[in-house]
Structures are given as structure tokens and as C-alpha cells.
């Protein structure tokens, strides 16, 4: 529900980085969104479309990379990517509370150009 605010942060950071690099246009934004971040990719795209007019990213492409969840089983130490949110270890069946990956929410990179 707060995807607009997050996209504002991403666009602001992208514009700052582009200007600092002497660029005038942003061609592409690459965001990494963890499956455990609670963020909806569709809502993020909608926010991007609503916010990009008038920015350096007006004609930019938005690449959303969905980062899968990775857990570690506290019982048998197996690292695994769960199929749903129950996080049951596929080897020993123990429910896992330990996630190594999947909460990411980051502007990984921007592709910029001078004109």
C-alpha cells in the first residue's frame, strides 16, 4: 500500500545518481524486490507510471527483479527456497524462522545517458 512512497524514494535516488554522473536521462531502473518485502510488483509499476512524467526517467524502462526467499533450517542446517510461506524444511520438515534472503527492497542500478 505504500508503493508510491517507495517509488518516490527510488526515483529521487535515481535522479541524484544520474545528475552526479553528468547524465541527463535515465534509460532504465533496476529494482530488486524480495518476495518477503510485502511489496506488490504491480503496484510498484503503477506507481512508476504515475510518477515518472517530468522526471529524468520519463521514458525509462522499469526492471523488477523478484528476489526469492531463502531459508536456513535450524534443525538440519539445510539452505532452501520455500515454495510457500510455511517455510517447512524439505529435508526434515522443521518450520524455519530464519530467512537469509527475500526481504530486499533496493534500487540496484540505473542506466543513464547524456541525452
Amino acid at each position: 500500500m505504500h508503493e508510491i512512497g517507495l517509488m518516490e524514494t527510488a526515483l529521487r535516488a535515481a535522479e541524484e545518481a544520474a545528475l552526479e554522473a553528468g547524465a541527463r536521462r535515465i534509460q532504465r531502473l533496476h529494482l530488486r524486490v524480495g518476495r518477503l518485502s510485502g511489496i506488490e510488483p504491480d503496484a510498484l509499476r503503477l506507481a512508476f507510471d504515475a510518477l515518472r512524467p517530468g522526471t529524468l526517467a520519463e521514458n525509462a524502462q522499469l526492471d523488477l527483479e523478484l528476489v526469492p526467499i531463502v531459508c536456513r533450517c535450524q534443525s538440519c542446517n539445510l539452505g532452501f527456497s520455500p515454495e510457500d510461506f510455511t517455510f517447512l524444511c524439505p529435508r526434515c520438515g522443521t518450520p524455519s524462522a530464519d530467512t537469509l534472503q527475500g526481504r530486499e527492497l533496493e534500487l540496484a542500478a540505473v542506466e543513464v545517458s547524456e541525452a
Partner: protein
Amino acid sequence: MKPSCETSSVSKVLHLGKDLLASNRQHAAANRARFDQAGVLVVNLLSSPGSGKTALLERTLGDLSSRWPMAVITGDLQTDNDARRLAGRGAPVVSIATGTLCHLEASMIARACQELDLSRLRLLFIENVGNLVCPAGYDLGETLRVVLMSVTEGEDKPLKYPLAFKSADAVVVSKTDLAQAAGFRREEALANLTVIVPQAQIFELSVQSGQGMDDFYRWLESALVSRCGAAVRH
């Protein structure tokens, strides 16, 4: 070669790796440092609207505020109704109206704390905005996170909103006095909680009848004791 290829030949990729929640994380870390220094146990309460966060606090303040100095920060989109419900129970209450924002952020807690004398408090409750989705992603600098589900909401609530439940240190199953009327299947609910949030303490309680409240209070007390020990060690 097409013109777009020429454009791409002069473009460059800037690797940023910028955490979009960095600002909240920084505020949360600053809050945590202040709470640590003051030795205050901070409990963040999350649930959907109507699960009984305010009712749990009404009862807890009434029962415990003479024992430990405590305060509450409440967040809602509109109105200070919850703050008014909690007033007059021996604990200062600060209300945050978030406007249209679906969750509390760490910077709002920092501002609200300016109205409180943290050094005089032992326990600070934060009643988050009623929403089981967004608040889960925002660290407020709390010591413990408690997620509530009432018996009227269905046994599969943890399966439907796993992110919020997964972040919990404790889960309160509230309104147990209504369990029979609601046809609440207790074993199924507990099994769902075990699988989604295996690390959490589970408290089944009713603020109406008082059933289960003592277990919850004992848990708070033991957290206060270990908090106090930590403060002494600092």
C-alpha cells in the same frame, strides 16, 4: 544499426545498491539506541483493525501501570479515539494521526517520543495502525513485536498474512471468551501459528474475562527483567 543501439552505446550503468528503506532503518536504529540508553522495553503491537489492540492496552494499563511506569503511542489514520480510550489509566498517551499512511514509521516514533520522558519509563507500547500488511515491513526500533489475531478472524489468518506473523516475537490470540460462539477451531489455529511463526510465544487471552492475562503479564515482566539486566551491563 538502429539509432537506439547508438543511444545505448553512450549510456552507462550506475550500480547503486540503494536500500529503499534505509531512511527508516536509520531512524529505527536511532530510536533503538535511545530506548536502550533509557532502559525502556518497547513493544510494537500489530494486527488488523478490530483484533483488540486497544482493548488489550486498556486492560494492561489498568492492571499494571501502578506497578511499572509506562506510556503508549497510538497510530491511526484519523481520530485520536484510541488515545482517548486509553487516557486516565495512569500512563501518558501520545496519538499519531498518519493521515493516509498505512503504517507507522520510525521517524514518527522519534517525534512522538519528544512528548515523553523516556528516562522515567520502564515500558512503552506502540499501537500500530490497524493493518496486517504494511506495518510488518517497518522496524520502529522496538524491543519486541506482538501480533494479535482474534478468534473471530479465522484460524487461517497466519497463513493469509504470513509476513506480519513471521516478524512476531509473540502472538496474542484475543477474545477467547468468544471462541465458542465464533466456532473457533483452536487446534487448527495453533497449528497454523506453529508452522508460520515457530519462534513466537503464543498467548490465548480475553481482556473481558481476564483469562490468560497473567501469562501475558509474566512474559512482559521477564522481558522487563532481562531488559533491566541489559541496561545495567551497558
